């Protein structure tokens, strides 16, 4: 593979200075109408400030050199006051995107970003190159002219094995369905109408693709463009969520996919629930989805443990309210109102937990675990077994040990906290042993 060298463009800075001076001119005219001298001085001050800042940012940006070499490395060199050199292995890249903000559209440039495995961010916004070593925003650093951006983007796609060769499935979001909840919201908050219109246009110009080896999300409208490519083999788990209202009305759901290292989804979209999302999960499984080998629901301790601690918590709150305060009528009235509110919260909380207990279920396949839960937003979370790092089984005394149930914690890349919990399972020992056996293999 041939080597590519490139430097970031400084066109955005040049557009920025023009806009800054124009804004300064308007402010100065405003001041100059009343005090001419101050208006002129303000304009001169703004111009000098803009020139200094722009010169500095152009110098910083042009001090970067990028190279994608024949050994699958991205090498970044920087030299201005500080000296900095970084080598990144391309096989660690989990997603590549090329986007254009409104300002970049004016300047005619694009920004390339990529996510890196094990890092809780995506390069470009607060990402790895420059950012966590140098404190610069690499979104600016990787701004390139159209031709160069295309060349670098395609080169990265080739190297990360995510070329968009053959389209397997293409989907365009249903515009009204996608914005339905936003539409309901704008009926109350009328000032959101412009945002709704922009959102409609953006959705209209959005499409999702599954190619032979990658997921592609892209849009191109008057305010900017975006194209994100995620190699299928970099996906760790996915989540499908369906809102009861939008699902019932439009048969659409929300799918999010995650790559190792990030807590945020790398791919998240409203989709026609049954078709496109199934295609993604099928690709993630590496084979056509099969019937689960085990289907479990949380045991009674899922509700009883919650009931116990929730009741203690509210018991303490009730006691404290009766313990403090004088006996005047006003205070008593306030206290009664608080008690009614607390009682409603207590009963409502218990009711929600009970419904959740009834609707939660876990499906265990030979290659994945699926956690289905949620009341209004029903979420189906898929955890491929090969992405599990380690597992834990816990039994609390109240009431899991007494009822011989256990909670399995499944840790996957992307978070230091527990990612997935399968609550209060009766067959926890069998499942835990199977998972350990799988991990050891």
């Amino acid at each position, binding site marked *: 593979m041939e080597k590519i060298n490139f430097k970031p463009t400084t066109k955005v800075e040049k557009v920025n200075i023009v806009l800054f001076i124009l804004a300064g001119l308007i402010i100065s005219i405003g001041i100059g109408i009343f005090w001419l001298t101050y208006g002129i001085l303000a304009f001169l001050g703004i111009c000098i400030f803009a020139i200094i800042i722009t010169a500095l940012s152009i110098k910083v940006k042009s001090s970067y050199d990028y190279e994608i070499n024949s050994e699958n490395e991205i090498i970044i060199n920087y030299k201005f006051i500080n000296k900095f*050199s*970084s*080598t990144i292995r391309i096989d660690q890249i989990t997603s590549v995107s090329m986007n254009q903000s409104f300002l970049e559209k004016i300047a005619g440039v694009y920004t390339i970003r990529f996510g890196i495995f094990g890092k809780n961010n995506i390069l470009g916004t607060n990402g790895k190159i420059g950012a966590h070593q140098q404190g610069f925003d690499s979104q600016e650093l990787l701004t390139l002219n159209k031709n160069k951006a295309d060349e670098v983007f395609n080169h990265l796609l080739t190297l990360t094995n995510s070329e968009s060769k053959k389209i397997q499935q293409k989907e365009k979001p249903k515009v009204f369905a996608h914005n339905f909840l936003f539409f309901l919201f704008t009926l109350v908050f009328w000032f959101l109408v412009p945002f709704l219109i922009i959102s409609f246009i953006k959705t209209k110009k959005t499409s999702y693709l599954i190619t032979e080896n990658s997921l592609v999300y892209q849009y191109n409208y008057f305010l900017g463009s975006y194209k994100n490519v995620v190699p299928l083999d970099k996906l760790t788990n996915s989540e499908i969520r369906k809102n009861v209202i939008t699902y019932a009305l439009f048969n659409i759901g929300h799918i999010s996919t995650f790559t190792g290292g990030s807590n945020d989804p790398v791919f998240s979209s409203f989709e026609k629930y049954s078709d496109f999302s199934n295609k993604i999960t099928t690709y993630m499984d590496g084979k056509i989805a099969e019937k689960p080998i085990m289907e479990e629901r949380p045991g009674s301790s899922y509700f009883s443990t919650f009931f116990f601690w929730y009741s203690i918590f509210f018991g303490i709150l009730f006691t404290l309210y009766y313990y403090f305060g004088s006996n005047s009528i006003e205070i008593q009235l306030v206290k009664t109102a608080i008690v009614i509110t607390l009682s409603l919260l207590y009963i409502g909380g218990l009711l929600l937990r009970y419904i959740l207990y009834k609707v939660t279920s876990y499906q265990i396949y030979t290659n994945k675990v699926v956690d289905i839960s949620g009341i209004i937003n029903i979420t189906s979370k898929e955890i491929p077994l090969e992405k599990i790092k380690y597992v834990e089984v816990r*039994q609390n005394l109240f009431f899991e040990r007494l009822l011989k149930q256990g909670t399995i914690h499944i840790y996957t890349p992307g978070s230091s906290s527990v990612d997935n919990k399968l609550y209060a399972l009766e067959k926890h020992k069998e499942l835990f042993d199977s998972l350990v056996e799988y991990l050891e293999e």
Partner: protein
Amino acid sequence: MQEIVLRPNIGRVLVSYLFFLVIISLVSITFLLVDVIMYLLIMSIFILVFIYLIGIEVSRRYTLKEKCIEENFKFISKSTKVIPYKQITDISSNKTWIADSIFSTGSIYLSTSGSEGVNFSLSFIKNYQNIYETISQKLNLSKSIEIHENGEIVGTHQKLVESKLEDRIRPSASIATIMHALPTAAIWFYAVNIFFIVPTVIQLLFIYFTKKKEYFDFYTDKIEYYEGFLSKNKKTLSYERITDIVENRSLFDRIFGVSKIQIQTAGSSMPAITISYVTQGESIVQTLKEVLKKHGKN
């Protein structure tokens, strides 16, 4: 491999909770001034929490198995956690100055890929250095190295040889101290205060001796990092786990002719190992790149 069962040293565990006990005492006294019943209530909650935490530590066991490490405890609640060796990216150890020296204990920390911080720790165990070596060996042996020739993979072999590459890498303690002293000197210039001198001198001496005790050993298959003037820390990083290398030289680094090298793994957004205040920065980066190439990483 025979299973090795370990448990935390209870004396050392109690020492680690000393701070907690001091806080309990202070908070309890505050409540005693307000209300005796409240004091008794708060005290009993604290004592119950304390008993719960100590009970967990007493029942905690770590088991080193053939393919994984298992941690379990059984006190009121019950937990079993299993981590396979192949998921571990970094291993490090820590021995504190006084407490661990008295009880002859230490702690081992294990990190996995794709998440921040330590995921698994074997805390306050006896004979921790031997256990550390046992786990390190398991990590090194669990993967085979690809042998490359003219860019092609021609075979694999298990990692058994651990010959050292170069002389030990040490940071320049004097340059590190001077660079830390510079901002302090600037503060003195504007706010001369005799009370600053003693703590500052202690701090600078601490930096000097800490850096003096810090060193890095480069082996053919791993890097070992040692630090600690009072406490002792050790970290082992297999080349297999390295994702990228960063060399960073600030203005002051360039004036003093030193470099900072950050070695990144997939385990965290923070560098796994930072080699700072070293004069041979470029040659270290070059050596690392060559070693990584031999390991089929690039």
